[in-house]
């Protein structure tokens, strides 16, 4: 016991003395929590639009005012000719051009209809797609306004038509931050728990101190526990600091039980510590460990449902997603934080995470045995 304690003590001293590591452990997560949620904005707002008004009538001005009032659009420029507008689009300054043809108002009144032209810059495909979609919505609104204006008597028939209203649950404002912040927190936890542990052990290999440890009576499991405990503790600190930022800075309350969240986090940390151990057993240099870490970060980032919905992935990719522990922890933490899920509702996730703990650490023990 005294041996394990001195190992843990040594590890803490070394970690806290390495200013770079302290920065990585504490400052980087905090900075990431402060910056990333603002940058990773999946909502498309402020689609830049250029409007070419060849009509300059009351109706065309009404339509334009709808766009300038919309939060979705940012009226970037206003021209008399399409030629000028297309230049803006080519310079990537606008995403969509709306052209209101000459005699728009006259044709609308006379013919009961007219055509508008929309040109979208599809370099950013998402923006182009959503931009034209929003544009259609606004034009539809405009259309309805006119219809009501001219034929007030059909209001009743209009309101009889099917009216689809969506309501968003659990995240009423539809704020992407409520979705992203917990996920980023999970990512940070992964980096700290898994990869710092791996790097730390490989560092001892590289400088040769592990050779010295190997000739002492310390057993492998004692050494591993001596490494795991400090990083397990540090991971908890990082997670709690992250939660505080989430609650007090982003105002995202934890609707579920905080203790339950910490329970899930700790089971997850154990599985990721196992991953770190596997990496450390396989890598000989910190450089190798870094690249393996990088590989895993990319996979965990892109395949865990952190940014994209797993349901929309091809089925082989879904298989990969569902074989990553991070997927389940993200699901659990979102459920607890945003939905206020109770243990009984997500107990299967804990079971799955528990299985990962056994698999990861089992593999870690096997790789360590093989390597010695």
């Amino acid at each position, binding site marked *: 016991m*005294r*041996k394990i304690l*001195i*190992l843990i003590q*040594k590890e803490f*001293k*070394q970690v806290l*003395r*390495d200013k770079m590591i302290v920065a990585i452990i504490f400052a980087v997560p905090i900075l990431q929590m402060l910056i990333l949620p603002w940058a990773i904005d999946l909502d498309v707002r402020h689609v830049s639009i250029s409007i070419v008004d060849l009509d300059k009538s009351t109706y065309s001005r009404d339509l334009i005012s709808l766009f300038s009032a919309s939060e979705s659009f940012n009226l970037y420029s206003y021209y008399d000719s399409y030629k000028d507008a297309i230049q803006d689009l080519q310079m990537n300054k606008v995403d969509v051009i709306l052209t209101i043809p000459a005699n728009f108002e006259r044709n609308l009144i006379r013919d009961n209809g007219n055509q508008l032209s929309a040109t979208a810059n599809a370099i950013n495909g998402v923006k182009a797609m959503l931009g034209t979609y929003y544009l259609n919505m606004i034009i539809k609104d405009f259309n309805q306004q006119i219809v009501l204006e001219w034929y007030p008597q059909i209001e009743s028939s209009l309101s009889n038509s099917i009216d689809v209203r969506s309501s968003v649950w659990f995240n009423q404002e539809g704020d992407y931050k409520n979705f992203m912040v917990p996920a980023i927190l999970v990512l940070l936890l992964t980096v700290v728990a898994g990869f710092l542990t791996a790097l730390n052990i490989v560092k001892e290999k590289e*400088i*040769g*101190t592990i*050779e*010295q*440890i*190997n*000739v*002492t*009576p*310390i*057993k492998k499991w004692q050494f591993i526990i001596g490494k795991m405990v400090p990083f397990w503790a540090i991971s908890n600190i990082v997670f709690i600091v992250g939660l505080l930022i989430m609650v007090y800075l982003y105002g995202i309350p934890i609707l579920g039980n905080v203790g339950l969240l910490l329970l899930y986090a700790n089971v997850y940390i154990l599985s990721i510590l196992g991953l770190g151990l596997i990496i450390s057993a396989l890598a000989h240099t910190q450089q190798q460990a870094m690249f393996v870490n990088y590989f895993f970060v990319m996979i965990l980032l892109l395949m865990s449902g952190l940014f994209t919905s797993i349901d929309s992935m091809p089925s082989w990719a879904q298989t990969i997603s569902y074989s990553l522990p991070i997927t389940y922890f993200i699901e659990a933490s979102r459920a607890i934080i945003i939905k206020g899920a109770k243990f009984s509702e997500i107990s299967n996730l804990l079971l799955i995470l528990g299985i990962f703990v056994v698999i990861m650490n089992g593999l870690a023990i096997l790789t360590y045995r093989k390597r010695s």
Partner: protein
Amino acid sequence: MKHKELIVDGVNITDKYAIYAENLTKKFGDFTAVNNISFNVEKGEIFGFLGANGAGKTTAMRILSGLIKPTSGTAYVAGYDVYKEQEKIKNNIGYMSQKFSLYEDLTVVENIKFYGTIYGVKPKENKERTFTLLETLNLQNEANKLVGSLPLGWKQKLAFSVAIFHIPKIVFLDEPTSGVDPITRRQFWDLIYDASNKGITVFVTTHYMDEAEYCNRISLMVDGKIAAMGSPAELKNKYKANDVNEVFYHLAHSAKRIE
């Protein structure tokens, strides 16, 4: 369980010697790093293990210190079998590797305390020995400095003192003085003599032939085999050489494994 033939005249020779090795072999694939070597090291002896780079010294030392298992042959260290009793061996030896092995980001005292505790030295004893150690090495003022900030010679002396801090039966030193200035080397050997006087068996590899003269007995490894063994005087006599250096040249000349 010890081999029957290891008991000679009613004396168990594995207990008699600090290190007993017979036909010890280690192969890595096709490469035979240690080829059928046999030797004994007496208790309390300073045994020099010489050889050119790549001769197999480090591999032999790693087998004897319980880091790797031999391919074949017999070896007992401090009376324990290198195949089955590696943990017991580890409890009874000290080891100073070729690479510097203390933690540079821990202080002198922290390193001593760490290794002392790992070898099961009790806290009170640990404190007392630390005090004596610092006094011997004249490191009182550096006690709380990071080891990384010390000059190499001091580090090596400290590493040696830490390796024998738990008073092992045998200490293995793998090229402990490489890169150290002559004065510090001399001081280092004073420390080795002190340890030897306390009854610790010293097993040391070195490249410096003048250091070989300080050993009670030396063995010379060439291409994984022991080419010669005996006291420095015996060897000089046998090969009609003026110093160990000439003996070394004479024998290592035939080496095929040259880096």
